[in-house]
């Protein structure tokens, strides 16, 4: 049986951008710089979290665990709402990525040059999913600086994946990261550059 669908028009449309990256890479900071962050509790079944690892026979299939994640909301005009979801970075929560990735426009993968390897699982995952993404190096105050081409080499990114430097605390910087992502999505959609005019600020 299906749920009743109303014929009333949607007052707004909701769209989703994911913020991925290793633990401590600044995901919550980034979401907070551009929107009001709100905590979201989810209940996840252990069967999904531990498929193939834990023997749950005899315990039943209803065992759940609480996972908290952050999300932010940006209202654009009166009819478009953009949601930013911080993906839980720890490996043990990666089973949630599938659900959160469903229907997502694209992904910002945050990286810290001191622990560049922490973003590799995200890069691999979203490459496989063929979801458009940008890699944003969060420039922590006490982190060493590297040339962007050096970083691109170290990350082994495809040529069409934008790599940008950012400060996850700064609205203007986060804004530019998101704009770069949306432009990337637009280019990917149209199959070539230049479909959407992009004046640089």
């Amino acid at each position, binding site marked *: *049986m*299906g*749920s*009743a*669908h*109303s*014929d*009333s*028009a*949607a*007052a*707004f*449309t*909701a*769209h*989703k951008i994911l913020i991925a990256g290793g633990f*401590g*890479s*600044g*995901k*919550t*900071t980034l979401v907070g710089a*551009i929107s009001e962050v*709100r*905590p*979201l*509790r*989810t*209940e*996840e*079944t252990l069967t999904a979290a531990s498929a193939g690892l834990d023997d749950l026979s005899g315990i039943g299939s*209803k065992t*759940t665990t*609480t996972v*908290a994640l952050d*999300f932010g*909301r*940006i209202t*654009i*005009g009166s009819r*478009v*709402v*953009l*949601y930013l*979801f911080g993906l839980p970075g720890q490996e043990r929560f990666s089973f949630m990525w599938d*659900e*959160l990735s*469903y*229907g997502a*426009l694209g992904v910002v993968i945050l990286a810290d040059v001191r622990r560049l390897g922490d973003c590799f699982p995200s890069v691999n995952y979203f490459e496989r999913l063929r979801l458009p993404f940008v890699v944003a190096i969060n420039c922590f105050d006490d982190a060493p600086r590297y040339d962007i081409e050096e970083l691109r080499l170290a990350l082994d990114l495809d040529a069409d994946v934008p790599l940008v430097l950012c400060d996850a605390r700064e*609205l203007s910087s986060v*804004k530019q990261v*998101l*704009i770069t992502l*949306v*432009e990337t999505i*637009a280019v990917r*959609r149209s199959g070539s550059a230049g479909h*959407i005019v*992009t004046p640089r600020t």
Partner: protein
Amino acid sequence: MPPGDKWRPRGTGPVVRPYAVTGGRTEPADGETLDLLTVVVTTGQTAGADDPARLTPEHRRILGVCEQQVTVVDLAADTALPVGVVRVLLADLILQGAITVVRQRPAAQRTGNDVLQEILNGLRAL
């Protein structure tokens, strides 16, 4: 735990186990798992008029928030209920005809170039 990635411990914490408010049910009664970005709204029909006892305070809280069109994710945040719990309670209210899902294009087709352009303009104006 670095301060930038804090997992907001709730001072008060939930007093009851999450699924206590659903009577232990973890699956929506209609078998449909609503997406986080699904938009729902009240229909104006009185829910559970035949059996008011079936409406819990959590059901009523959800009905209150749903008077305006709202996404499942905002609903969960507004009511401070876990998403899984919200899905179960929403399904009850949908089956009773008190709440309805607002028809939208599937997520994959929702964001046309016009919407992308609108998002770009909106971001630039922030």
